[in-house]
Structure formats: C-alpha cells, structure tokens
C-alpha cells in the first residue's frame, strides 16, 4: 500500500529544483522525514534540499516526524522573508 503526497516547493527551493510541485509516492505510514529522505535520494538537484527543512503540512507548520496520510499537501518552506 502506498500514498501519493502532493509536494510543493517555493522560492529558492523551486529555483534550485526547477519544479514547483511533485506527486510523491510513499509507503503507507510514512512521515515527513521519510518524504525528505525519498526526495534527497533522487540525487542532483534534489540532494541539495536540507536534511531538515522547514515544512508545512496542509498549510500548517509541522515537525518532521508528522505521519502523512492520503490527500496531505506538503510544502518545503525556505527561510521566510515577508514584510
């Protein structure tokens, strides 16, 4: 069994990866940390993502140990600079 997670990249991360959105398939029971490992394991340029990035799940800042379920939206959040 697996879940597909809509994954978003913004600003510096999007520039670096050349993509703003990916659908990532993960085993059921995976966490945000597992998603980061899966992405970084794809090699260049994904291995340039931080090992411990700031993350939002369903538009709420979340810890890396958060479990993921079907329909979740995960965003990689570079250091923010509004204002």
């Amino acid at each position: 069994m697996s879940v597909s997670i809509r994954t978003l990249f913004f600003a510096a991360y999007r520039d670096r990866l050349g993509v703003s959105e990916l659908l990532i398939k993960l085993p059921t029971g995976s966490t945000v940390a597992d998603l980061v490992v899966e992405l970084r394991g794809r090699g260049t340029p994904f291995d340039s993502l931080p090992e411990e990035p700031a993350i939002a799940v369903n538009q709420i800042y979340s810890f890396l140990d958060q479990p993921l379920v079907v329909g979740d939206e995960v965003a990689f959040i570079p250091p923010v600079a509004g204002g």
Partner: protein
Amino acid sequence: MVFTEVSVDSIDGPALLAKVGADEDGAAILFLGVVRDHAEGRQVQGMRYDAYPEMAEEVLKEIAVEATEHLGTDRIAIAHRFGELEIGDISVGIAVSSPHRSEAYEASRYVIEEIKKRLPIWKKEHYIDGVSEWVKGSIPPGTGLDSSVHSVPSADDELV
C-alpha cells in the same frame, strides 16, 4: 473587524485605514512597508515577492487575531502583496485603531514582526548589475527547527 489579504494587487493605504476606526477610537495608524532602492550597500532596482498564497492568508489571519489582544479592539486591516514590485511600491500595509495610541503602536509592531518571522512569503532582490538574490530569511517557529536567522543560499551554494 479583522481584514486580511494576500494578493498581487497594489496596496491602497488610505483604503486600509478606512477599514478601521470607531467612535471610541482616539488613535488610528497606518504602517507601510515599501520597496527601497538599496540593500546592504547594493543598488536595488526591484523586488520579486513569492508567496504560498493559501497558507499566507491563514497565517496572516492568525497574526491579526493575535494582534487584537495587544490592540484591545478588533479593528485591524492588513494587506501583503506578492509578485514583481518596483521601487516605491508598497509590499505590506497595516492599519489599526484603538481608543489610545499605545495599543495601536504595539499591535502594528507585533504584526510586522510576526510577518517577518512566519508568513510564508519570500523576496528576491534585483540588483542594478542584473544579478538577483533571495533575501536572508527566518526559519518559522512551529517547525521544530532552530528559529534563528538563516541565509538563503545563492544558486551556486548548497541549500541549508
């Protein structure tokens, strides 16, 4: 009323100010963040703001509601813009009103500081020499990570 907006539309300061105010209010203030022509000794010719718009809307609402505790009223209107901005363009506007001035100043200051800490918006400075770089940002609280200021690396650096 609490009003918040994150959009590509230009910000109308007086219109924001007109959204706050009441007969009992003796103070109404408007803060505007404006794109300036320099940053750390470099000449800037414009700025690109990126946003996670749906989340930024939610976070801005949270910040506004929190600010009402400082304000003692719910009269607050905040707009943040994204997209390509020119020198002199308004990037953020914060209007508040309250019976006395100190609460209004405190609430306005609270909002802009929280925006910088946690609103999912980013800015890229365009320098006159043609180079563009993402501005140093903050790791938002709530992510379980160190919230001290981190630099956003340029394209040639490892992302950390």
